[in-house]
């Protein structure tokens, strides 16, 4: 392990390359005490987290020095490793997990996506009081599901400083897909800054980490390329509304080092295979604030599982996922080496690793794509698609419908009556309502924009991933996974009841003040969403912001449906794109209080967080 310079440095003092690429041998400095690894099996790949399995697990949370960039920092670790140990458990087992807190402050562990009694869910202040310093909390629950999940701290910013690990539950009936190699590929991000300091900087200047802002010379370049009129038009709405078209992420490589299995890009995590192997890659986005766009140049990715639930296999070339989401992917490598390339959504950097037939082989590493400006569609939804003439997105069918409404009425009052009449035929809740109902608290200082013509299609890969082949960034026929490609194999139709009622909530924010909320109410001003035990209920989420929010509902599944009310896929974390309106059904089987929040850690902490009461 490399011991770097003990003296803290500002990011700009560091060599740019080392900061972005990280140290080749970066990571946890202290050797993990052997007693902690007593139950650990040998890791399947170099640099991977240790594996713990069985019905009884012991986890110890402590501060551990790490060095990812050349400076030594204190991380919060579980059993001394980053990522935390991979837990390999078995469906149907009753597990006992003892978590001991050796930090000077309280801590917690949340089992992300796991159905369990609410007291075991690990959210301080909602499930339980948390785990005090010196205390051991015993989690006991029965594993009622299988698949790829993860676990992390739900206290402050501890997750961001190292507390995350993979949780694999083997199905009782055996795996649906045979694999010769099985790797966890856990993506995360690391900052040398105190996360609270980074957050408070955003509070002062919300674009502090954005070094891809529109400049005067971008403008003059556009003038010579598009003409003055077009160059002005391209900027007009953004500038008028005080919105930044390059606001793709709050943090960037200006403070983050992107990690794959706790390894820097320079460190190059590697997973080995033999030619002809079927390799299962369990991708987990354990980042605090980074969406990743993942591809393995030269390999098709067959997605077989999303958020731990088997889906009808779909073969793609690339997928995007946000913090909290997981995708299991099968690949069949034929060459000697491939790069696993995961560029961050704002394109400031990437996490990277290698699949190879032997240690030490590498494949070419692509450059990150040039960042793409948000479009009118990302600001206004369906109406921004074509009517404004500002981008090339083709109008989808529902977008067209929405358009018609707004052209017809131009106001919401008309919309109400129209929808009332149209949907009056059979079950009024057969389809999600398309009547936009802003909360009255969306008209205050907490909300910087509202969307009146949201898009409802699920087949938009999202900003930066649209028209990649046409833009010359990928080969012809390059396919990017969208939510529309995902269909659960089992489970999603277990409850065939139509929803008995419909809730609508809007995702809101104010970028300038750096505040995030549901319906314009940050957590402290909110009241819980009350659900009845075992009711079938529809939740509509409309994103009135220009960022994508991975929305994670604890304690129950989020069963995504189309805008026609067709059930598609069972998730625990659903990314909602800018100006998008999506809906999902849920049946709360477990009583108690549960958290519901954006899994971008800073958005959650800023207040995009609700409590759900099931009673």
């Amino acid at each position, binding site marked *: 392990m490399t011991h770097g310079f003990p003296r803290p440095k*500002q*990011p*700009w003092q560091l060599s740019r390359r080392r900061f972005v690429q990280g140290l080749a041998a970066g990571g946890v400095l202290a050797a993990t005490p052997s007693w902690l690894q007593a139950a650990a099996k040998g890791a399947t790949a170099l640099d991977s987290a240790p594996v713990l399995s069985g019905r009884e697990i012991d986890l110890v949370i402590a501060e551990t020095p790490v060095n990812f960039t050349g400076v030594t920092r204190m991380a919060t670790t579980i059993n001394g490793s980053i990522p935390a140990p991979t837990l390999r458990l078995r469906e149907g087992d009753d597990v006992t997990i003892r978590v001991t807190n050796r930090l000077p402050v309280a801590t917690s562990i949340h089992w992300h996506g796991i159905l369990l009694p*609410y007291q075991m869910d690990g*959210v301080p*202040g909602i499930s*339980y*009081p*948390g785990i005090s310093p010196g205390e051991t909390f015993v989690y006991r629950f029965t594993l009622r599901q299988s698949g790829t999940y993860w676990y992390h701290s739900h206290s402050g910013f501890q997750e961001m400083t190292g507390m995350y690990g993979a949780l694999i539950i083997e199905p009782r009936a055996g795996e649906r897909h045979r694999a010769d190699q099985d790797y966890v590929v856990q993506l995360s991000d690391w900052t040398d800054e105190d996360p609270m300091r980074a957050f408070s*900087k955003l*509070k*002062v*200047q919300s674009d502090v980490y954005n070094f*891809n802002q529109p*400049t*005067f*010379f971008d403008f003059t370049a556009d003038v010579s390329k598009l003409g003055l009129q077009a160059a002005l*038009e391209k900027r*007009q709405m953004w500038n*008028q*509304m*005080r919105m930044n078209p390059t606001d793709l992420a709050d943090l960037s490589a200006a403070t983050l080092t992107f990690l794959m299995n706790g390894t820097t890009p320079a460190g190059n995590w590697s997973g080995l295979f033999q030619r002809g192997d079927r390799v299962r890659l369990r991708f987990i986005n354990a980042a605090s604030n980074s969406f990743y766009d993942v591809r393995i140049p030269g390999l098709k990715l067959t997605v077989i599982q999303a958020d731990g639930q088997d889906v009808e296999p779909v073969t793609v070339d690339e997928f995007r996922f946000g913090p909290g989401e997981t995708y299991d992917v099968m690949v069949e490598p034929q060459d000697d080496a491939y790069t696993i390339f995961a560029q961050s959504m704002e394109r400031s950097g990437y996490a990277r690793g290698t699949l190879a037939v032997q240690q030490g082989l590498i494949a070419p590493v692509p450059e990150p794509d040039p960042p793409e400006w948000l479009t009118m569609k990302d600001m*206004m939804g369906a109406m921004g698609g074509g009517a404004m003439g500002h981008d090339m997105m083709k109008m989808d069918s529902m977008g067209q419908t929405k358009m018609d409404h*707004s052209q017809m009425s*131009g*106001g*919401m*009052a008309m919309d109400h009556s129209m929808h009332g009449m149209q949907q009056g035929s059979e079950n009024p809740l057969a389809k999600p309502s398309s009547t936009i*109902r*802003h*909360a*009255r*608290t*969306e*008209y*205050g*200082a*907490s909300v*910087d924009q509202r969307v009146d*013509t949201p898009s409802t299609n699920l087949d938009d890969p999202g900003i930066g991933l649209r028209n990649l082949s046409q833009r010359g960034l990928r080969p012809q026929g390059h396919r990017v996974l969208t939510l529309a490609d995902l269909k659960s194999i089992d489970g999603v139709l277990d409850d065939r009841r139509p929803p008995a009622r419909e809730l609508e909530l809007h995702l809101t924010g*104010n970028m*300038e*003040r750096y*505040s995030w*909320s549901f*319906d314009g109410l*940050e*957590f402290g001003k*909110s*009241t*819980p*969403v*009350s659900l009845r035990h075992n009711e079938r209920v529809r939740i509509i989420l409309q994103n009135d912001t220009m960022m994508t929010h991975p929305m994670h509902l604890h304690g129950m599944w989020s069963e995504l449906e189309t805008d026609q009310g067709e059930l598609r896929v069972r998730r625990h974390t659903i990314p909602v794109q800018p100006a998008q309106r999506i809906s999902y059904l849920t049946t709360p089987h477990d*009583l108690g*209080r549960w958290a519901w929040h954006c899994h971008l850690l800073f958005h959650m*902490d*800023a*207040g995009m967080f609700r409590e759900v*009461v099931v*009673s």
Partner: protein
Amino acid sequence: MRLNTVKYLTTLVVIVGALQVNTALAQMDHGDMQMQGGSAPADARDPHAYSDGYTLTEGPYAQPGPRQLKLADEHAFWSVLGDRLEYQEDSDSTVYDIQAWYGTTYNRFVIKAEGDIADGTLEESSTELLWGHALNAYFDTQFGVRLDLYDEGKDRQWLAIGMQGLAPYWFELDVTAYVGDDGRTALSAEAEYELLLTQRLILQPRAELNLYGKDDLDNRLGSGLSDLALGLRLRYEFSRQFSPYIGVEWTDTYGDTADYRRAAGQDTSGTQFVAGLRFWF
């Protein structure tokens, strides 16, 4: 640099800005859609409609005792911005212009301090202590007091009411009205714009003007538009928080203020180079 050049350059920036606003207003007509601001219609959705009367601390399965989970929306933050800490060549003086705040997203205690130091003496200073409350998504209203200190002249105290925030097209605005002793009134307005030449090289036009309700003989300020300052500063952000700059500032005085200066044998207008530091933490 010639005075006229600065004048024209700054005027150009202002005109381009104004034209942009005009174009915008013309093009903003997307039917009745209003994406920002406004007031809630009577039938707007109740954000507590799904709560069944439960709160974060009351109702089934609530944790006992006072609410434990508090997120950043209930935390106080603070910041200090040294917008201008500069040496002015012509007057051989040092100017400071610092703002600090402490508070939450919507309610903040604000200090604004500006002053002029020459020959080691604080020649004049103006310090405001304000309570800021969010008016809308982009603007805060501010109430408080302002204290003006003069090395030569008479100190003044004012009650202040103002508005500070970000206007469409990214103009930083700060407009405050003041009421003082003996029926004195004043208005000051400040506008700044940041033009990113590159990600780190930033050109900042800045305009500031002061109006007074009646003559202040002691401090040689005339009623009406008293003075106007237009500046253009070019800074390099070594980090977002630390940027040295150079610039040029043109100032002019009007009406009785100009007369007082003429009588005292001082210039009524001038152009000078400045060099300084912008920082925040």
